[in-house]
């Protein structure tokens, strides 16, 4: 008579263990976004005489249009969105170069979270006056999934210069592209629980 409850107990234990062992993993190794229209850069003059100035742009990237909701809306323990890198193409008046760029910073911002510095790039000395900067992430392990929730993610792009060699006068624009990866790993138990 005791066999029936034991069998039921073993069966339930196996089911629970199975739900913990069974899992689903999804990964998108690379999704890249490119602004169709270049952003107009806002010139911020040096705040102190002889200091550095900067050109800034704020870019609202629609990552929610790229990654499905089940990736973006999950816990950072199971859902991961990483910044892989960016391209920044600065365009100024005819004949101008990008030799004035002393540094590039890209910061991820969210209205309800502290900003996260994604890129802190310094062009190497003597670098050619290229049109496009390919910039690497400061920490490739940063997980942006929380920043994609609660209001979305905005990238603040900033190119700094020395007052001794300012950018050529006139309108400057920035073509911005960014690449991200996403992955998710959930057990069946988490899926059943709605996690």
């Amino acid at each position, binding site marked *: 008579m005791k066999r029936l409850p034991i069998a039921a107990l073993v069966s339930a234990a196996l089911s629970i263990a*199975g739900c913990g062992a069974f899992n*689903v993993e999804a990964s998108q190794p690379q999704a890249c976004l490119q602004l169709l229209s270049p952003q107009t850069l806002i010139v911020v003059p040096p705040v102190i005489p002889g200091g550095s100035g900067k050109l800034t742009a704020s870019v609202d990237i629609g990552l929610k*249009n790229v990654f499905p909701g089940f990736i973006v809306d999950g816990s950072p323990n199971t859902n991961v969105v990483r910044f892989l890198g960016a391209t920044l193409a600065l365009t100024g008046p005819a004949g101008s170069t990008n030799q004035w760029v002393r540094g590039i910073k890209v910061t991820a911002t969210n209205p309800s979270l502290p900003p996260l510095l994604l890129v802190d790039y310094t062009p190497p000395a003597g670098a050619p006056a290229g049109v496009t900067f390919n910039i690497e992430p400061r920490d490739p392990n940063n997980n942006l999934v929380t920043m994609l929730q609660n209001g979305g993610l905005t990238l603040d792009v900033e190119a700094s210069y020395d007052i001794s060699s300012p950018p050529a006068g006139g309108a400057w624009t920035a073509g911005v592209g960014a690449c991200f990866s996403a992955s998710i790993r959930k057990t069946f138990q988490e899926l059943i629980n709605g996690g």
Partner: protein
Amino acid sequence: MRLVPILLAALVAAPSLALAQAPAPEGAAPQAAAPVTAAPAPRAAPVEEPYPQFGLALAVGAPDGAVLSFTWSPLYWLLVDAGFAYTLAPGMVFGLEFRPIDFFISPIIRGEYGYYFAGNTANQIKKWVGLPEASWPLIGDASYNWFSGLIGFALGSRRGFTAALEGGVGYLSLNVKGGTATSGGLSISTEAYKVTSFMPVARLSFLYFF
């Protein structure tokens, strides 16, 4: 019917046996015993009807979907099958199965591989994941395949109809091509997605040998 030759042999042999056992007349030289001319015919062994080798099976399960397969059984305990399947897309399923006991109820050990072509799978994924319609081109064609190991039992005759119920574990891999889309002032391009799952599998099948 097999008794008739035995009775005939017994009738032929009876007078010889009686003669051999009669006492010899006095004075007569001893004679060698008369040879037995007819021996009982050897009993014919019952002829075992061979197991049928070919069968047709219909199965439903997850992730199989519906499968119509042809089965070949070179040995009564070994079954190999290949079939056409359909879930969200057409596919193929191959199986190797052991049924070690020839009895009304028999245990089953089965290994299976399935591949499904790109069909309607991508369209279903677009709906399931809740991607905005403008971003649907980011999801290209999708195909999937899996391996599974199952155990179960079969009911019925190995020489005719059997029904089987099996369960086990499987590893499924869904491969989704990427794409390019324009949405919200952005040009978006994605590489191929990959979704894998270590999952439970189940299968109900009906097999008829002919």
